[in-house]
């Protein structure tokens, strides 16, 4: 088991390095902004005298030397303390923790829907007939090229404003998840489908497929049970892109559909120059990316037995 421990340690170390790098970048970039950060805290339409300015400077530790601020920042980061938001005047970790659930919920359902759609469409359109593939390719192209902002508004206009089937914004109703999830999932599903079909068609030309067919397996079984695994690998490697799309998509979707979540506070933080909150979002995103990366590596092992060589499982 030794090598396993080492592997885990290496991976953990790498993960920490990534998070540290992202946090340091966020810290440094924000230091490059010239001028007095107290200005960013109070904004310009405030009536604040010099004494209050000093109080603010001291409260956020802005009166200390930069290296000290950096070390303090990293130290706090280790304990999960992301500092106090300039504008919300609350601990950043608390704000993010509170907003994590709605975003996670949205991302989870969007992922499930995207994968489901991609698999179904891939399997359905990779037969001998060419026309389903062509039709699907056109639809995919249109969906991928549609800004999700516009897509969201169109879905709202049709299903909420006109038909009245679904509520416009989140008011605690489960139905309010439907449109946001579809808006977030569609572009992802379209890209996944393109990649997976490419892989599936390649796999279907392989000799093992001929063997499987010769054994008398039905066409759907061949496609979904054997060839799809091969198609899934290239799709899995897109996980980084996938995560990024979910996070950035959440900013758009949460604002269009007036949902709470990380995307909503991110936009608010950026517009109001809430630097600690922006730093917190960067650190959180780094952690999410690292976590997703690890999960995907494990998934690859599950999908492709050939990668499990070291674990003693024979290559297929």
């Amino acid at each position, binding site marked *: 088991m030794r090598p396993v421990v080492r592997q885990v340690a290496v991976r953990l170390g790498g993960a920490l390095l990534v998070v540290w790098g992202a946090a340091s970048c966020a810290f440094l970039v924000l230091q490059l902004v010239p001028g007095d950060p107290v200005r960013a805290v109070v904004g310009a339409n405030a009536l*604040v005298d010099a004494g209050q300015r000093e109080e603010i400077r001291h409260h956020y530790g802005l009166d200390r030397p930069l290296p000290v601020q950096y070390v303090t920042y990293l130290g706090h980061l280790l304990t999960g303390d992301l500092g106090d938001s300039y504008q919300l005047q609350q601990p950043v970790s608390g*704000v993010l923790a509170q907003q994590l659930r709605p975003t996670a919920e949205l991302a989870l359902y969007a992922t499930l829907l995207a994968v489901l759609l991609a698999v179904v469409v891939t399997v359905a359109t990779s037969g001998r007939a060419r026309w389903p593939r062509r039709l699907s390719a056109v639809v995919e192209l249109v969906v991928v090229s549609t800004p999700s902002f516009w897509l969201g508004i169109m879905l709202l206009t049709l299903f909420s404003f006109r038909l009245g089937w679904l509520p416009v914004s989140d008011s605690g109703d489960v139905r309010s998840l439907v449109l946001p999830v579809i808006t977030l999932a569609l572009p992802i599903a379209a890209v996944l489908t393109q990649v997976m079909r490419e892989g599936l068609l390649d796999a279907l030309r392989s000799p093992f497929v001929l063997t499987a067919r010769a054994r008398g397996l039905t066409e759907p079984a061949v496609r979904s049970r054997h060839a799809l695994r091969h198609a899934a690998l290239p799709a899995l490697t897109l996980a980084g892109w996938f995560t990024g799309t979910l996070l950035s998509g959440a900013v758009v979707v949460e604002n269009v559909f007036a949902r709470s979540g990380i995307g909503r506070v991110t936009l608010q933080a950026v517009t109001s120059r809430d630097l600690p909150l922006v730093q917190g979002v960067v650190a959180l995103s780094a952690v999410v990316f690292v976590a997703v990366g690890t999960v995907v590596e494990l998934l690859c092992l599950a999908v492709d037995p050939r990668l499990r060589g070291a674990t003693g499982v024979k290559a297929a």
Partner: protein
Amino acid sequence: MQLRRTVRRAALLSALVLAAVPACSAGGSSSAGGAPHSGGSLVYATNQEPDCWDPHTSAQDITAFVQRPVFDSLVYQAPNGDLEPWLAEKWTIGDGGRSYVFTLRRGVTFHDGTPVDAAAVKANLDHITARSTRSQYAAGLLGPYRDTTVKSRYVVEVRFTRPYAPFLQAAGTTYLGIESPASLKAGADKLCAGTTAVGSGPFKAASYVRGQQRGYTRNAAYAWAPSGAGHSGPARLSSFTIRFITEDATRVGALTSGQVDAAAEPPAQQIGTVKRDARLSVVSKDVPGAVDAFYLNTRSTLFSDIRVRRAFQHAVDLDTVVRSVFQGTASRAWSALSPTTPHSYDASLKNSWPYDPKLAARLLDQAGWTGRDSQGYRTKNGRTLTVVAPVYGEPSLFSQAVQGSLKKAGIELDLAASTDATEVSTLLDKGKYDLVETSWARADGDILGHFFLSSQTSEGGGHNFSRLADPQVDTWLEQAEAAQDPEAREAAYAKVQRRTIDQAVVVPAYVVRSTVGVNKRVHGLRLGISAWPEFYPAWVEAR
């Protein structure tokens, strides 16, 4: 205090953006619909969500708006600007305007059951002025504040270091709202989080989900409404909800599809749609305070010449620009103050400085700007007539339209856009600009002092962007601040408005209008003094 909402985000800088979204409003949508009906609820969609929910700390208009139903104030400023007793049943002003003694109404209780007494008022003023509150606006509203003394159970004295007449109006704002002393002990982070607001208002704060909505439930014990509130006793609505829908299209769609009962700030191009809808109506009101205006830097090389300032004043075709950009959602301004600013607007300025390109050309010729460069801009000794205007973020459609209008007069408006707030504020502090465009909502002429008193420099946290140091203007503004007689104050403010136009220190541009689209099942949702909706007198028809 209204409009500040947008402005403050980008800080005053955002003021520079001009694009400031107007505050909401409510003029009063009641008409037919039978007798007022008690019970029921409504959903109001607003386009902004407060950062910090404590009006003692926050400078945002939206914070004042969302907490108004929860926090009462010592005095009430009616929509016509009159000040009326509220938590204070009467007051006397002594010591030459340095002392305000309030006698509180008895029998008033906070939502937590504790009484509203002199000690509670003192606790609030102490909280506002405490350094640890980091007040961004409320403490500033208190001006030359000295201290507060409890005289007896229901009598409290607030003292200032110099006569300070604007205090009563300030005391009527939500920023100086009276919160339960017990809730104040929760600390800034809890108060800012918006989940612990306890006041004495007609509605109690209910659940709040950031990014989504805030609920309100009726305070059944409410019996201390001011006489001008349009209703008395407990509120008619048994509850209501404010939903935060920042996306314009979503908010308007929610209104037109009946999913919300009222929605703030429909975009200009959608107001027509809302008006044509038989189930909807639109209420609007001009936001009081300092209108959106160009403050010309009287000490810049360019604008230290009054002829150039006057030329600028007459060179912009404001009527056309305001009409085409705002399509009726804002009107052209003639004074630095909005017409809805109580007891201070000088109406005689109307039409006194019309668009006059010939006059502008003559003035520029006299000032020596006689040459022309290849693009048609005027030049003098090889220098182009360029007006530098720092802009935070993207230049608004309006400032771009003004740019186009000025080009015809041979003036180049350089909208020095920067997304860096600190960079822009450094420019402002150092006076490295020719003009600043901004606005500031407040229902009192005292706002003029923030823009024209020689002591209100940008470095010192003031907004004297014209860098004006006119002893005559200073004297009038100080007189107004010290005078208790509303007519004397009005006369002094009128002089300041006329002088600043005559000297072309400021070029007022447009009056921001607050607009709310309202479903006709809602009645009595009126726009208060600050042009934000007041929920207390509102009622809804049963569905």
